[in-house]
């Protein structure tokens, strides 16, 4: 089997374990390609891809763009801040106008949950969700799981803790889906106000004490506090959050075992993660970024390769 079960990558919820494993196997090959002197392959030379970003992004957009260029695709970039969206154009009109210029694939980030799903129903091009509101961020979850697989061999039965702002995090939700599908045990940890009410229905363990979470887990995936999405106050101050939920090197050194420390970026140094922890040998944060390019190449390659 070398074909995905879906035409789009809208979320991890929609894809199967076999899909995830196929993406990983393909990414293994691409990781090798991007470490060669000549980092480019000609596979997607007749494919045009539009990166449509209605929300800010550094890593994801650069990573997608680099992945597309390494595959020899033609790339156009679009960000909402300097476009006709400001003049009142609808999402479907904007995308249809881009597609009229003969674009084959759309990579989209949008502030509203479900925006790529809506688009998938109305247009022919392949769609990759690069983050939709607080819903899903599938490529981030894939690269996180890929990085864990690289570090620990496989995910079956492994203990992964996701720590921080679970309520507003699309990374958390996609990660939970991906890790559960690959057979890992998942724990979420954060202040009660930042844990969604029905989170246990996803089959995850809930822990309120970050020290206990660190003692339990083999991998800690630390998330950022998403102040831009918080309409009300969920905790008294960032300083207080940092005191109760911030992770530093001393805490890691106090554990009986070595754990792997991950962060999807951007890091707020001194809030969820201290500088000495983020830069320590536990951290695989920059490996995650490298793997991100390989994973996105794999997803683009597999979606583009399946003829409609």
């Amino acid at each position: 089997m070398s074909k995905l079960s879906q035409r789009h990558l809208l979320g991890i919820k929609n894809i199967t374990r076999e899909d995830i494993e196929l993406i990983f196997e393909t990414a293994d090959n691409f990781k090798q390609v991007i470490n060669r002197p000549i980092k480019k392959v000609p596979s997607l030379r007749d494919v045009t891809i539009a990166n449509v970003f209605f929300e800010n992004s550094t890593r994801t957009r650069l990573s997608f763009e680099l992945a597309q260029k390494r595959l020899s695709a033609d790339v156009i970039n679009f960000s909402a801040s300097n476009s006709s969206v400001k003049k009142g154009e609808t999402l479907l009109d904007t995308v249809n106008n881009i597609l009229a210029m003969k674009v084959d694939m759309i990579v989209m980030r949008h502030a509203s949950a479900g925006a790529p799903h809506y688009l998938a129903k109305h247009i022919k091009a392949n769609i990759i969700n690069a983050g939709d509101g607080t819903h899903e961020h599938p490529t981030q979850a894939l690269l996180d799981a890929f990085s864990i697989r690289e570090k620990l061999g496989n995910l079956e039965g492994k203990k992964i803790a996701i720590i921080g702002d679970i309520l507003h995090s699309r990374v958390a939700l996609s990660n939970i889906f991906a890790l559960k599908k690959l057979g890992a045990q998942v724990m979420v940890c954060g202040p009660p106000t930042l844990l969604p009410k029905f989170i246990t229905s996803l089959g995850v363990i809930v822990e309120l004490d970050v020290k206990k979470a660190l003692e339990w887990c083999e991998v800690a995936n630390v998330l950022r506090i998403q102040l831009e999405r918080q309409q009300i106050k969920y905790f008294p101050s960032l300083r207080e959050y940092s005191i109760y939920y911030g992770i530093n090197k001393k805490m890691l050194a106090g554990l009986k075992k070595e754990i792997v420390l991950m962060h999807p970026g951007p890091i707020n140094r001194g809030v969820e993660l201290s500088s000495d922890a983020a830069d320590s040998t536990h951290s695989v944060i920059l490996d995650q970024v490298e793997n991100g390019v390989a994973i996105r190449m794999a997803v683009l390659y597999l979606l583009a390769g399946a003829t409609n």
Partner: protein
Amino acid sequence: MQKKLILDSHLLDITLNRLCHQILENHTSFENTVVIGMQPRGIFLANLIHKKLELITGKKIPFGHLDTTFHRDDFRRREIPAKLSETKIDFIIEGKNVLLIDDVLYTGRTVRAALDAMISFGRPAKVELLVLVDRKYTRDLPIYADYVGKYVHTLDTQRVLVELEAQGHKQNKIWLINNEKQ
């Protein structure tokens, strides 16, 4: 489905020995020669040839695997993307004489992709192609093998099946198969 045996274990061994000695004629010193097998099926044959060459010359010859999938010209033109295999080349190709090995030469498109894929690792001084079976008059591209185990005349409906012990078969056997349309 009809099967016809083209090479059996004994004949194959004679053929491989002949190929190795032909290579020796052209590469008197193996100082600058490397052997690359083409994934997925060419690597088993390449392995046999490589071992024989090392035995005959008494020298260590670099050996690698090359996957051509990303360089194929039928991407997006077939139902299902081709399955990927590993590329493993731990030496420098730049300035080397490369002996490229595959089991069957048919349309020549895979070899074209391999030449492209190889350039990603450097600029070889010279590239030669060795195939076990050359299906004559079936080429889509102007590609020719330097060393050929056996020439066969085939139809489009026919297929060459290479069964090697290294691939888990009982005996080395090369078959010509008729896939007559019902």
